[in-house]
Each structure stands twice: as structure tokens, then as C-alpha cells.
């Protein structure tokens, strides 16, 4: 019993983070049909903001809010630096500019802060544990699930009930038509980047809660997770991103529980090979999105 509860909580908490990460990637991809390679660096930006605020007497929630705001700022900066100047010209060019922007941010952190890991301030509640159904569970895992549920609720409210959300969904379905009907392209795109920064910022708090410190290369793993989750779920569907995130968490956690230690170090190789198999079966991902995927 205890082990099942533990397994379930592990899958749900990891899946929540993966789903939020994937959602932030898909919201930009849906509109622009372009992948943001600097997405992982939003986590890094939020992490270093927390680290720099660590010495101040501010309450942790304020620090966390500032860190999330910095991630939103970095998301918007990505759009201005890497996307806006080239996005109408060439797909490959944007992939490279966002990759270059990611390298730029990472090396800026190397140059101005340090190549070594820096501890970030975390509230005490993150290291507490609770006993649930006979299993001892870190409280932060429960918090992650709760926070993700709140974020998903806010996100679907924005997408479904507000004019901005409607405009973003319209732009994701058929960008040209949406523009003809008077939806301002730049505003929609910038909002998408801001939303993706918000999601990454919230994820970063819990991601850092798991590992406790920040390094310049911290963004790679969440970026990869978001990539894989979106590819499994279907690149163009917001629901698909969430499904893909939880499915990926299920796969990873199952491997964690079942693989013997000498094979566990190859876990990532197994996970990604499984992903390739899923793609063989359904090249478009599990859930098909609204549009044809034609870039506009």
C-alpha cells in the first residue's frame, strides 16, 4: 500500500512539473510554430534571482514572486532578442538564434556569477515530510501538485474566458486569419512568451526545491523534459502537453522504481528510446492539435 501511495505521489508531483514545463513550450510553439531553445534558461534566471535575493531580509514568498517576475521578463526578452527580428524569415534561423540566446545567458551566468553551484534560499516547509497511507512523503511534492493544479486552473481560465486567451487560441489555429480579423500579432506573441515565462518561473521554484542549488547548466534537463513531453503529447495541442508531461513522469518514475542500479544510470537512454517507439506508432503525438501545422 505504502509503496503505491509513494509511487502515485511521485508520478503526480513529477508530472505536474513536466506538464507545466511542456505547456510553456507549447503555448509559444502553437502560435509561432517555432521552438524556443532558450526556454530552459528561464529556470536558470529564476534560480539566480533567488540566489541573489538570498542575502536580503525579504520574506521567501516575496523573493519567489520576484524570481517568477524575472523569469517572465527573461521570456519577453527572449522574444525581443531572438524571435522578433528573424521569426518571419527562416525557421532554422530562429532555432539557431534561440540556441545562441540560451548560450549567451548561460555564459553570462558563468562570467558574472560563477561556474560553481550556488545554494538558493528555500522555506522550511520544503524540507518537511508528512505520513500519508503509511508512506513518508516530502511535503514539497504535495505542494507541487497543489501549485500545479492552481496554475492549470488559472491557465485554462485565461485561455478560455479572457479576450487575450481567445486571441491566443485563435492565433494558434490560424495566425493569418486571426491577424486579418484585427488581432495584434506582436501583442499575442509577447503575451505567449510572458505566459511561458510565468509557467517556467513557477516550475523553477519547485525544481530548485528538489535540488537546492543553481548552476549555469540547470536549464538543460527541464528543457529536454519539456521537449519530450510535447513531442509525445502532440506539438500543437495544449491538452497534449499536459498529457505528455504526466505520461513522461509515469515512464521515468516506473524506471526509477523497477530498474536495477546498474541499468538505472542508463535511464535517460531508456526513456528516450521509449519515446522514439511512441513516435513510431504516432508520428504526430498522442493528441492532434487544431491546425495543420503550416507556418504562417
Amino acid at each position: 500500500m505504502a509503496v503505491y501511495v509513494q509511487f502515485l505521489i511521485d508520478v503526480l508531483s513529477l508530472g505536474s512539473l513536466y506538464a507545466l514545463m511542456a505547456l510553456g513550450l507549447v503555448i509559444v510553439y502553437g502560435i509561432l510554430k517555432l521552438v524556443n531553445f532558450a526556454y530552459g534558461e528561464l529556470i536558470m534566471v529564476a534560480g539566480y534571482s533567488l540566489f541573489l535575493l538570498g542575502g536580503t531580509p525579504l520574506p521567501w514568498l516575496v523573493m519567489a514572486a520576484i524570481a517568477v517576475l524575472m523569469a517572465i521578463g527573461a521570456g519577453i526578452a527572449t522574444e525581443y532578442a531572438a524571435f522578433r527580428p528573424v521569426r518571419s524569415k527562416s525557421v532554422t534561423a530562429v532555432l539557431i538564434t534561440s540556441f545562441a540566446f540560451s548560450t549567451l545567458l548561460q555564459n553570462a551566468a558563468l562570467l558574472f556569477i560563477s561556474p560553481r553551484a550556488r545554494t538558493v534560499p528555500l522555506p522550511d516547509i520544503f524540507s518537511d515530510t508528512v505520513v500519508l497511507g503509511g508512506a513518508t512523503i516530502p511535503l514539497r511534492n504535495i505542494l507541487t501538485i497543489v501549485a500545479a493544479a492552481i496554475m492549470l486552473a488559472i491557465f485554462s481560465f485565461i485561455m478560455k474566458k479572457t479576450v487575450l486567451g481567445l486571441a491566443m487560441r485563435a492565433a494558434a489555429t490560424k495566425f493569418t486569419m486571426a491577424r486579418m480579423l484585427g488581432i495584434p500579432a506582436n501583442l499575442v506573441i509577447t503575451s505567449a512568451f510572458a505566459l511561458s515565462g510565468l509557467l517556467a518561473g513557477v516550475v523553477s521554484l519547485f525544481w530548485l526545491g528538489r535540488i537546492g542549488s543553481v548552476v549555469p547548466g540547470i536549464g538543460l534537463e527541464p528543457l529536454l523534459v519539456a521537449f519530450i513531453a510535447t513531442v509525445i503529447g502532440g506539438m500543437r495541442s495544449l491538452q497534449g502537453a499536459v498529457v505528455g508531461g504526466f505520461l513522461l513522469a509515469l515512464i521515468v518514475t516506473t524506471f526509477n522504481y523497477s530498474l536495477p542500479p546498474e541499468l538505472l544510470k542508463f535511464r535517460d537512454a531508456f526513456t528516450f528510446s521509449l519515446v522514439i517507439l511512441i513516435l513510431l506508432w504516432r508520428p504526430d503525438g498522442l493528441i492532434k492539435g487544431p491546425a495543420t501545422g503550416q507556418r504562417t
Partner: protein
Amino acid sequence: MNNSKLITFVAIVIPVLAVMLAARFLGFPVFERIATLLFINMILVLGLQAFMGNSGILSFAHIAFMGIGAYTSSLFTIPLQMRGMVLPDLYPVLKPILLSPYAAIAVGAVAAMLVAALVAYPLMRLSDAAAVITSFALLVVMHTIMVNWSEVTNGPRTLFGVPKATTIYLAAGGAILAALVALYFKESRTGLLLRAVRDDEIAAGAMGANLSLLRWKGFVLSALFAGFAGGLWAHFITSYQPSAFYLKETFVILGMLVIGGAGTVSGAVLGTFVVTFAFEALRATENALNSSSVFPWQLVGLTEIVLALAMIAVLVLRPGGLIEAEEFGATWRKWRRRG
């Protein structure tokens, strides 16, 4: 070989030979090292161009195939008496096999090609962003394997004892050969069809082009280049670790190709030269600044920052790279006719 292709080829061979002779006879050993690495990088960039330029799909996995070439070739050339020390857990079958470095480099290239042939077929069904993302995942998979398969790679630690066999002449010869193959491939039936698929997937498919098979051929060829370059590199550097075949190197190689122009062979070569010179100049500056301690702290990553800014700037101004669509030979002939 028609006239304009010949001009392009000559225009690639001349700077290669010039740099080779200058580096060899100016008398600074560091120049010879830089030039040799430049030629090896040129093979890598040309390999990437053969796939990416013709198919229009960005591939991040290229550097991993360089790693396969490097490790496979090294397995057969590390001297027998050192093997027990370098790779204590090596499989007994492989222990007594010793090949000449040249044969081993060829084996490494073929190994990279075979791995590519196996893993790439399912991936080539994907298009656009999904293809790019899975190639990124493939890079991570291969990196994980290289870091953890300590029987043949010595794990994350340095693999040493590889004999030095790559000379500047061998590297330059390899680069020229790579340029020749890349030029031929671009104009071959497969290359032409691949470019048709790149420009309009649906129209080319409707005319009978087998999309995934074409891409697969391009990918396998590009992995052959990468494996070859990896073998040459391993027998030049002589000791290395898996982190050499990861994102930093990927960034440099992609930067070279994209700044030069992914669509053309001339662009790939030009990009390799431009980025190598810029990179070495910046690194020298960084080292000079660090050793003269102008700043109170050590500068790390300045070179990458400037390179990243240069990449963004080039792409904003010329999204297709310095040489976008037309090989140098064609431009030259037009210019001659006009003049």
C-alpha cells in the same frame, strides 16, 4: 564535373591548401594545431551541411556521431600494453585487436554510419520541430551512453593513450575529400530530390519522392562524415572525455554552418574559416586579459558570448547565412559574364 562546380571546388581547395602551407611553414606549432582542428571541423560542418542544407532539418545529433567515430577508432589503436590500464573492463573479444590508425579511423567512420542507419530511420518520418527535438533527444541519449558505458569509454573520465596519427596533411586531405563528396551529393539524384522535399514536402511527395528514405540517406552520409572527423580528431587530440561531444561543440559547429550559410557547400566552408579565426582571436584576447589580470576576476565564457551575439547579428541581417543559395562557382561565372 561541370564548370561552375569545378570553380566552387577550386575555390574551396585553394584556401585549404594556403592555410595548410602557411600553418606548416610559418614555424609556429600553435598555428599547425589550429589549422588541423579547422580542417577537422570543416569535415564536421560539411557533413552537417549534407544533411541539414539539403533536407532543411536541423540536426543536433551530429556531434554524437563524431563521438562514436572517436571512441570506436580509439578502441582499436590504444597500444596493447596500455589497454589494461586505460580500459580495465574492456570486453575480452576486443582486447587483442590492434589496427593501424588509418584502418581504425575508417572503422570508426563506418561504425558511426551504421549506428545512424539503425537509429535514424524512425526519426526521419518526423518533420519540422518534432524532428529537431528528437535529434536533440538523440544527442542526450548518446551522451548518456558515452558517459556510462565505462567498459569502452572509460566513463566520464578521460580516455588516454590514443596514438597521435593525424597530421595536418591528412586533415587537409580529408577536408578536401569531404568538400568533393558534399558538392557531388548536393547535385546527385538523392540530393536534388531531398532539396525538392525541403522546399515543398507535399508537392515532392505527390510526385513520388520517398521522404523518409531520402532523409535517411542524407543522415547516414552525414554521420559517415562525422564519424570520420571524430576518428581524425581522436588521433590528433589523443586524450579526451565524453563532454567533448556535447552542447558546446554542437554550438560551435552549428554556428559555423549557419553563419556561413547552411544551404551551400561554399557557405559551410566559409563559415568554418570565419568562425575559427574569430574564435581563436577571441580566445587569445580572453587569455591575454586573464593573464595580464586587467579584471579582478577570471573571464570565463566571453568567447561564447561574443560568438552568440555574432550569430544573432548575422541571422538578423542575413537569415540564410553569408552565402545563402548560390554556390560560389555560379556567382563567379555570372560575375565573369557580366564583366
